[in-house]
């Protein structure tokens, strides 16, 4: 175990079941968790995100994105589908890291090699990860999501050492899906589930936007104007039932991801 987590999450089997401090107790409710949110959402976070385009590279190559208007449509669609699902998963992961108890766990999912008291937490992480798996149709996108999740957990564990991240890394050694890693990291960074969801929604479009700037030489200010106008709040909602998490598919993104893996010349991982 490396350090202690704020809020005493149940995920590491710790005895404390104290919920996170209410925002009001800081005296500055609006600021609670904001520093963690800014660090997590910053494209300079050294967690490998700079090399992922979220399908934008393939869309640029095929001509589906050729200018700011195309890019704006692409980003709106990405936010409404992949972004909405990622936000819900991140919300759930962050809330689970806070919560003293997990939803009922299917015993079939539990790993027989785990020992109490971490078995429940590990099984819960794998269950939420399976919910993410079920919502990402493209194997290429699942691979990209797990790769980014693994790198984010590695980075977050050194920035915000917390038993909850150690538990997640142990439960899913090949990497949790990125939104789940983001939700757990957000908890370790002192964020609320809403902030975790905002980070997921925001980063679901910023990588693609930056990739288009690099690949097409678009005016970066124009692209940031587009980013500033996207309806992030509209894809963020409380989640209380993992089986009812949103599952908005984007077949075009799935196809772009699959084509991208088969393209010989590519600059981005995904």
């Amino acid at each position, binding site marked *: 175990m*490396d350090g202690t987590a704020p809020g005493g999450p149940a995920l590491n089997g710790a005895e404390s079941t104290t919920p996170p401090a209410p925002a009001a107790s800081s005296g500055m409710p609006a600021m609670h968790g904001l520093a963690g949110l800014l660090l997590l959402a910053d494209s*300079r*976070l*050294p*967690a*490998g*995100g*700079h*090399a*992922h*385009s979220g399908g934008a590279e393939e869309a640029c190559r095929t001509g589906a994105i050729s200018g700011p208007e195309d890019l704006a449509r692409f980003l709106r669609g990405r936010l409404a589908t992949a972004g909405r699902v990622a936000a819900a998963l991140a919300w759930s992961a962050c809330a689970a890291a806070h919560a003293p108890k997990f939803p009922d766990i299917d015993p079939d999912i539990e790993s027989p090699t785990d020992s109490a008291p971490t078995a429940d937490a590990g099984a819960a992480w794998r269950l939420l990860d399976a919910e993410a798996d079920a919502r990402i149709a493209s194997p290429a996108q699942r691979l990209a999501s*797990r*790769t980014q999740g*693994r*790198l984010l957990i*590695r*980075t977050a*564990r*050194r920035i915000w050492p917390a038993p909850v991240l*150690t538990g997640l*890394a*142990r439960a899913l*050694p*090949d*990497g949790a899906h990125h939104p789940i890693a983001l939700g757990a990291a957000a908890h370790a960074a002192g964020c609320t589930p809403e902030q975790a969801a905002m980070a997921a929604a925001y980063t679901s479009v910023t990588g693609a936007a930056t*990739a288009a700037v*690099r*690949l097409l030489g678009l005016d970066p200010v124009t692209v940031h104007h587009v980013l500033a106008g996207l309806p992030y709040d509209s894809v963020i909602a409380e989640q209380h039932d993992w089986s009812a998490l949103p599952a908005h598919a984007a077949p075009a993104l799935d196809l772009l991801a699959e084509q991208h893996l088969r393209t*010989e*010349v*590519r*600059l*981005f*991982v995904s």
Partner: protein
Amino acid sequence: MSANHDDHHDAPDGHGRALRLGIGGPVGSGKTALTAALCRSLGPSLRLGVVTNDIYTTEDADFLRRAGVIDPDRIMAVQTGCCPHTAIRDDIAANIDAVETLEERFGPLDLVIVESGGDNLTATFSRGLADRQIFVLDVSGGDKVPRKGGPGVTSADLLVVNKTDLAPMVGADLTVMSRDAAAVRDGKPVLFTSIREDRGAHSVAEWVAGVVGSWQHEHGTPHSHSYLA
């Protein structure tokens, strides 16, 4: 690809793990040729792994595999999203992941070479990724390059000036390059090579072997999984 073990927590102190050697430099200066040469010279005596940072696709990794100087499975390619310097300096996560995956699969290793994508004179490796670094120039870029300096030329542990066989053809004065490099490098070594003529880059290989020896003397001989927390 993944480092698939129980508790993956990077330990930056380097105890008991392979030396990580960064090889950087401008496009076309001979980074991949040097990597291949080091594999040729050091492969018989050291346990090696190689990570390439290709600008496009897997060109450099494919070159090394075709060269037959190292088991192809011991080469991993990292993609850098148009920014090769970002992947070796500002956000090294994917490279660390690749290095540790090699150590996990084939470890213990003595030396992991991380070859950067071709970049400019300001590109250097993060100390979080490379324990030592070589910067590779070639004479055809002009004999003024060492004088211009830049972090790669001034701070690399070893500066290699490659393609000396071309010097007469491009009018490059090796004496000038040597003098200028010495002036900006504060005594750190400079080696001149022609990898086309010396397929093993023996002078560079000798320097690397010495660095690996010192590293192991200081941090212990690498042993399995020792870099895990």
